[in-house]
């Protein structure tokens, strides 16, 4: 049989399908977002189960100013992504570049702030001593994610560590802190030393899972929106309508990422 070369075009990338009245990518992204709602729904459901069943739930463990700042960053990016799409509708490619670039930069800013928050948790420690003291605070030099086992297993383990306790705060559920000057704690006297990672109780496990999954979505958004801003924008010269639709679909995904954060922020930071 002789092979014949023929071009194949994907239908309904621009014109709507007669049965749905939508171009395919738009229906596709909404179905995808519906499945994403259920994914986050399952996690929120687990959160409710864990929180309602917990005898006590730690509060004010996260930085509200940083969380609020990140919320404003995502709100701004949600507006800028719409402005980018509207610029294409108005056939203004330069403005599209400006707004889409702004969206990507804001997304990167969000991840950077989240990174600072994560770093702060992995350099914040809980220490328990043999005489029954339980302290939270920072170690001298702010080491990242140190544990008692790792400290003891180091080639030259220190005899003591310098610990800077947190100031006491309202609603803090950890044992009372001795606020004041730096404490010198003998390593042999320490029974527990761990950073505020996901292992530091149910709250932090939930916090890292939910915000980690959300951060992965933000990174996915940076890749997709960045592609449309950069190499993907070449399509504007050949198929402007199709490119505009792609940007719209990318924008819908980005709005969803903001929607999730709108619920994550109060759930984890404020309640």
């Amino acid at each position: 049989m002789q092979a014949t070369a023929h071009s194949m075009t994907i239908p309904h990338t621009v014109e709507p399908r007669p049965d749905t009245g939508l171009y395919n990518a738009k229906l596709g992204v909404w179905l995808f977002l519906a499945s994403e709602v259920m994914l986050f729904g399952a996690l929120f459901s687990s959160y409710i189960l864990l929180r309602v069943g917990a005898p006590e739930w730690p509060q004010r463990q996260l930085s509200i100013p940083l969380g609020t700042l990140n919320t404003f960053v995502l709100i701004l990016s949600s507006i800028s992504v719409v402005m980018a799409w509207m610029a294409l509708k108005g056939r203004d490619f330069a403005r599209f570049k400006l707004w889409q670039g702004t969206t990507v930069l804001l997304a990167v800013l969000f991840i950077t702030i989240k990174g600072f928050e994560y770093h702060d948790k992995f350099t914040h420690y809980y220490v328990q001593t043999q005489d029954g003291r339980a302290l939270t605070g920072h170690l001298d030099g702010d080491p990242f994610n140190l544990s008692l086992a790792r400290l003891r297993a180091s080639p030259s383990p220190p005899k003591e560590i310098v610990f800077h306790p947190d100031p006491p705060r309202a609603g803090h559920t950890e044992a009372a802190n001795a606020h004041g000057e730096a404490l010198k704690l003998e390593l042999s006297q320490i029974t527990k030393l761990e950073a505020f990672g996901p292992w530091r109780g149910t709250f932090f496990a939930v916090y890292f899972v939910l915000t980690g999954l959300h951060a992965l979505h933000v990174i996915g958004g940076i890749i997709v929106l960045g592609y449309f801003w950069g190499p993907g924008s070449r399509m504007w010269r050949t198929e402007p309508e199709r490119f505009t639709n792609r940007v719209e679909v990318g924008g819908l995904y980005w709005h969803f990422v903001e929607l999730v954060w709108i619920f994550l922020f109060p759930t984890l930071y404020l309640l």
Partner: protein
Amino acid sequence: MDRPAQHTPPRSAAVRHKLILLALAACTAVMVTLSLLPMAGGLKIGLILLVAVAEAGLVAGVLMHLIEERKLIVSIIVLTGIFFLGLLLLPLLAEADHARHFFK
């Protein structure tokens, strides 16, 4: 047809988006303020979640054009919303005794 914003004059659309930006920022500020006010746990949770739902409604309704969207998409989202609410209600019903204590 399925792109209603196309028919919105760019100038009025820009004004609308500025208003939405202000409304979203205001919702966030209200949530943070409510969280700092001394009030009963259940009331605080209810009010903050109410503001969060309003904020999410603005994003989904206006920015994602859901209020002007085709019936097919609205149906998909409504159906998803019902299942989502079911997912949230299941643990609350399962732990009803604890939940009563939790909202006091």
